[in-house]
């Protein structure tokens, strides 16, 4: 495993302003929003206001921010059960995300999907999939539609390191490469499949990148804690896909601060590992980056304060929201709106 965690805090590359302040501020806001919303989700668990399970992206914010900021309207996101971050990053309101986690009527799917299935077609979030690997072929299909209809959108598919060991990953990579589909596979390698280190169960050191050659794809590894690096790499992959160059597989090195899910205290981690990664916290890195580019403290603090206020407001709205109406139980099983299977 590359020793990204040993790198200096500031990037050694000379300051490169290819990204621009507007996009940088947007990526900062997205990361702060994910951090605050996920932390709030965790706090709401402890108050038993978030039920069921939940999989947080604390520590992985830069991947979602960089990938989403490089997308265009109309591009499609396909997420896993660890999908809150990618959903928020596409602009879905915090209230709808928290409302779904809290299983309220104001939730994104009015409580019918829950934390693991966040979907907002209007924002290009084509679903969060709770069966490992299932959405990689599905993203291929959406990309096939774009290719067939001559449309310019790309399908971006996010998954964890553990997904690289399931069959659907390999079927999708080969399929996408053979059909030259405009799909981008983004592996968030957070070092743990669930509770087990990915290195203990994988034949190669880089679970995604080291498999790329098998599908004729370049080996791409990026610092997943640096939103700028993610943004540049993702943007290049999107451009390639849009111009008919086919799929890309990007491995983002990052780290999950919390356990796999609500039920996991993550006691399997070696002592000091979490603290080491927190030194390279993506938001800490990005705050410094903004300052290097001359963004004032007032602007940075202003964004942080605004996001906190929005998360507080969303929380209060969700707490006040009613549970889903009971008639939802049998709606939308079939396209006629109901669940009738006989006459």
């Amino acid at each position: 495993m590359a020793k990204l965690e040993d790198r200096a805090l500031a990037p050694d590359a000379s300051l490169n302003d290819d990204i621009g302040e507007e996009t940088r501020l947007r990526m900062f806001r997205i990361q702060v929003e994910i951090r605050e919303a996920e932390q709030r989700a965790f706090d709401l668990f402890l108050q038993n206001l978030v039920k069921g399970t939940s999989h947080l992206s604390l520590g992985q914010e830069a991947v979602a921010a960089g990938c989403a900021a490089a997308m265009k309207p109309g591009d499609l996101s396909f997420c896993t059960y660890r999908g809150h971050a990618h959903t928020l990053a596409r602009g879905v309101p915090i209230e709808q995300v928290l409302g779904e986690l809290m299983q309220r009527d104001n939730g994104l799917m009015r409580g019918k999907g829950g934390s693991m299935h966040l979907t907002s077609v209007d924002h290009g979030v084509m679903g969060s999939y709770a069966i490992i690997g299932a959405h990689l072929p599905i993203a291929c299909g959406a990309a096939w539609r774009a290719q067939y209809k001559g449309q310019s959108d790309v399908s971006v598919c996010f998954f964890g390191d553990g997904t690289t060991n399931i069959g659907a990953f390999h079927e999708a990579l080969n399929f996408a490469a053979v059909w030259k589909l405009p799909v981008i596979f983004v592996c968030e390698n957070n070092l743990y499949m669930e509770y087990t280190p990915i290195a203990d169960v994988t034949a190669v050191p880089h679970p995604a990148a080291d498999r790329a050659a098998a599908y004729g794809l370049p080996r791409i590894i990026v610092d997943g804690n640096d939103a700028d690096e993610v943004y540049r790499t993702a943007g290049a992959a999107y451009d390639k896909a849009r111009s008919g160059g086919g799929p890309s597989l990007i491995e983002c090195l990052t780290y999950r601060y919390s356990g796999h899910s609500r039920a996991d205290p993550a006691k399997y981690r070696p002592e000091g590992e979490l603290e080491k990664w927190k030194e390279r916290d993506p938001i800490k890195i990005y705050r410094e980056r903004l300052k290097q580019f001359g963004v004032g403290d007032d602007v940075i603090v202003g964004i942080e304060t605004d996001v906190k206020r929005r998360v507080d407001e969303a929380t209060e709205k969700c707490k006040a929201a009613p549970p889903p109406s009971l008639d939802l139980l049998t709606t939308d099983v079939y396209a006629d709106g109901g669940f009738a299977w006989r006459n």
Partner: protein
Amino acid sequence: MAELTYRDAVIRGIAQEMTRDPDVVFLGEDVAKAGGVFKATVGLYEQFGPLRVRDTPISEQAIMGAAMGAAMTGLKPIAEIMFSDFFAVCFDYIANEFPKSRYMSNGQVKCPLVVRTGNGGGSRFGAQHSQSVENWCMMIPGLKVVAPSTPRDVIGLLAAAVRDPDPVIFLEHKSLYATKGEVPDGEIVDRLGTASIVRPGKDATILALALMVPRALAAAEKLKAEHGIDCEVVDVRSLVPLDTQTILGSVGRTHRLFTVEENPRLCGWGAEIVSIVADEAFYDLDGPPVRITTPHIPLPAADILEDLALPSVDRIAERVKRSLEN
């Protein structure tokens, strides 16, 4: 009107829909240049070209997932899974993805696709290329499940399936591909969720599906000729939606119910129908409903054993006669 094989009806049905709607696309293993291992897609590649008729790798999950992603975003894909037994390696899509996406997303996600597959026994292929898996699909909320028995129904129900806004599992019976039937000229579009009384009768109702329909019909003729027993044969055609009104109406007239199911016995479609009839038409019955099924076994390869396993004309006729005599 022309006589067509069931196999050629598949080709005509797909071609009819692809001609009508440019959003209909077709993918599967060996389906394009090779024309399909059952020769049920011959000529489609030549007619509609490589962008609409596409060969895939042996990757059933990729086939199903790609069909779903395309359906969610505006196409109307037809996916072929060569043998229905292979549903087991892509069952995630059948059980978890196609049917639940609309519900979980509170109606945001649409999944209008058709999965065609070669289903059923009689080909001496053994236990992993011969199964009748309609009950695997029937039990899943959100799916529709269709199994035609005639060339005309192949075209009409396939057209209805392609035009349907829900995911449809379309089970073609391998042992029917070579059978022939009269098919009208021009466009044929049927309706899902409609059973068909294929032989009226007054003494007993026999429900059958796919390959069991011609066998039930032959058994009915035998019962009439040899014993004067006049059976009504109903081709169920569509398991979901299920046309219970036609079934209950028939039982209300004949007062006896038999199901002929190719699937192994446990949890076959007939069990659900018997429970519906018991629940809603118990007092119409003059005797216990009888399910005639394959035993609870994997299908053997040897012809003599496979023939023993599947409900045969003689077994159907004998079982109906014995039951009516009691």
